[in-house]
């Protein structure tokens, strides 16, 4: 018996040692800038991204333009690599030189954990002028002053409206205030004699398509945190207004009728998207939808405009987020990786060509002004919003999207009537977010 106990203890001790070693593994993250590659250095840069199909090809083309500056560097681009794979790669020592992440909500974790290396030493060494990028975009690519990522194009969100339906319903101009949006939604909604919704003027369900609290936040002037870093939902009038407005719309449709209608709508990135199918007249979405609509639903005539705001003075504000690029901890060629990131972040022609190809908003002011940028009437709205100083970036936290999920869950409960007390509910969500922030300790 004693022999067995001793053996078990030995096994646990061995596991402890192994676990400690494995958990601490991963290449070092230097706080100094690595040297840029020489003109004769032959090397291969591995880039991981989550792109696939046509977008993967277009991004690969953009990456290849780097060879004009460094013909000696071969670029190996691997698509369909999400954040889980990037993290696993860092842990196992199999890291790419450059990682592209779609999940901007993870920037807090990437920067605070050292998963992405600090870029400030490179920026200082190369005297890079970050003012070429708008403050909102700079905001979502750093965490507490630690810049560990750069933007690769950006997404800007605005209102889409079906021009034919607007004309038919007698809505003369795109709404600019929430009251106007409510009235337009009522006029544009079509119901069957049995009360079923056939067409929704504006679909308010939180969490559905781009109806996320982060994206809607700027239109309501919603503040996520207090100056001391605590969750500010209950104290921010914007959140109260957002929930009240959503509930007013849900009550207009009737929660059950709205859910029955919503349950029959297509997925967000499919050709069955409700706006493509003419089942919703007004919606919030990113600039990329212009390309989706032209490719998948050319029959839909649509316009774009800034999303209506609670306070008229805020009109012209918008939410922005986007793909981020970083040098993962343990990257084999950090110096060359920075050169590639710098190229993708600031080379105007490359940014403009990529923007034209995948219909995202360029991330630098110079690229937005470029005559080569293809800007039609619908896309212009997004460019104008991106240039505006009212643009708001994605809120950055070290807890991924936990705060966004907490607010979305509450919004659904509140608008369905399950949670009747708005103020108490928001306080509860604040407490939940604060608990998670405190637990993260970052």
């Amino acid at each position, binding site marked *: 018996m004693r022999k067995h106990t001793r053996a078990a203890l030995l*096994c*646990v001790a061995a*596991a*402890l040692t*192994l*676990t*400690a070693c*494995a*958990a*601490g593994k*991963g290449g070092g993250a230097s706080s100094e800038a690595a040297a840029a590659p020489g003109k004769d250095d032959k090397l291969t840069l591995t880039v991981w991204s*989550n792109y696939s199909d046509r977008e993967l090809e277009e991004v690969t083309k953009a990456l290849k333009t780097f060879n004009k500056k460094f013909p000696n560097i071969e670029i190996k681009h691997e698509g369909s690599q*999400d*954040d889980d794979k990037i*993290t696993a790669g*860092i*842990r196992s020592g199999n890291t790419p030189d450059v990682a592209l*992440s*779609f*999940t901007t*909500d*993870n920037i807090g*974790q990437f920067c605070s*954990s*050292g*998963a992405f290396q600090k870029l400030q030493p490179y920026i200082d060494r190369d005297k890079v002028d970050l003012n070429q990028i708008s403050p909102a975009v700079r905001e979502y690519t750093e965490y507490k002053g630690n810049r560990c990522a750069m933007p690769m194009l950006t997404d800007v969100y605005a209102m889409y409206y079906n021009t034919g339906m607007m004309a038919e319903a007698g809505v003369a101009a795109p709404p600019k205030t929430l009251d106007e949006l409510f009235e337009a939604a009522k006029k544009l909604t079509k119901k069957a004699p049995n009360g079923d919704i056939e067409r929704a003027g504006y679909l308010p369900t939180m*969490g*559905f*398509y781009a109806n*996320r609290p982060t994206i809607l936040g700027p239109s309501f002037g919603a503040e996520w945190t207090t100056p001391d870093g605590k969750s500010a939902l209950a104290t921010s009038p914007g959140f109260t207004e957002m929930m009240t407005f959503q509930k007013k719309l849900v009550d207009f449709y009737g929660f059950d009728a709205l*859910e*029955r*209608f*919503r*349950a*029959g*709508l*297509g*997925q*967000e*990135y499919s050709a069955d998207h409700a706006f493509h199918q003419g089942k919703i007249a007004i919606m919030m979405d990113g600039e990329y939808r212009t390309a989706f609509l032209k490719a998948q639903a050319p029959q839909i005539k649509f316009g774009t405009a800034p999303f209506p705001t609670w306070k008229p003075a805020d009109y012209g504000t918008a939410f922005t987020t986007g793909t981020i690029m970083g040098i993962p*901890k343990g990257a084999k060629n950090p110096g060359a990786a920075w050169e590639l990131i710098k190229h993708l972040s600031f080379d105007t022609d490359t940014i403009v060509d990529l923007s034209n190809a995948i219909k995202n908003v360029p991330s630098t002011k110079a690229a937005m002004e470029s005559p080569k940028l293809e800007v039609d009437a619908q896309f212009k709205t997004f460019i104008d919003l991106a240039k505006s100083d009212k643009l708001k970036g994605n809120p950055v936290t*070290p*807890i*991924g*999207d*936990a705060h*966004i*999920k907490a607010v*979305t*869950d509450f919004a*659904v*409960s509140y608008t*369905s009537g*399950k949670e009747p007390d708005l103020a108490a509910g928001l306080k509860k969500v604040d407490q*939940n977010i604060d*608990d998670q922030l405190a*637990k*993260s*300790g970052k």
Partner: protein
Amino acid sequence: MTATLGARPAPGRGRARARHRLAVLGFMAPAIIGFVLFFGYPLVATVIFSFTKYDLINAPEFTGLDNYLFMFKDPLFTKAIQNTLWFVAVLTIARTVFALGVASVIARLKSGVGLIRTLCYLPSLAPPVAATLVFFMVLRPNGGPFATVLGWFGLDSPLWFSDPMWAKPGITAIMLWISGDLMIIILAAILDVPQEQYEAAELDGAGPIRRWWHVTLPTISPVLLFGIVNSVILALQLFTQAVVAGSAGSGSADSTGSTKYLGFPDNSTLTFPVYLYTQGFRYFDMGYAAAMATVLFIISFGVTIVLVQRMRKGSAAEEGGPGA
């Protein structure tokens, strides 16, 4: 001679025994190594991580019981536990009864057995993501085939994956559809019941239902125990179907990263493994995820032990017969 051997084994005999032990160990080595590497080590490591703050990148920091204490103030933890216990209770019973029912019917068929058996088994081979999406389309309350059929009778379809009350039954329906693997195992057990027992029961005047109840069921009870334990484990580990159904219901099945809405609607599809994954890989709190995994392991272990003991007692009573 015997006495001598008993007092002190001959050196040649001792060496033979050692060689025998080594040979046994050698044959068992692949299994032992696999067990230690892929079960023992991860299990111990998970328990160790559960007492740490660990973001997957940096070395873990010891935080004592913090992760376990946080469970008491985490509303989603409670919700995830409730959801998983619902599946353990409902899915286990439904899956075992469904598979037993289908197997019993197939066992009595006279013709077309091969075709029907194949048709019932085939869905279990479908990849879980595809199977869930197909089911999602079939159950779509607005224009889906199921809703259309209900409409012919003037009935409204439930909102399935949009209504918190129906989302879990919807997932259970998917799990029943793909339970062909268990059905085949139970069918094999039923076909293995000795024919003489049925004949004896028939001579005693037992009809088909009594034969099934008194002959088939007791004979296949070990297989049913396996089915129940297997279903409990399946329910405790329910992940893929919950993620796909929740994200498809919220319109984000084709989204990536944090825009995929997990738990929809109203966190009714947020099972324990889904929440564990969310904490570990979306919120980078692997210490908390490890604590959750430890709790899940303890629950699974406890439930399995209780089940096995109860079934063993039942079998012993059955074998002992009246008065035993």
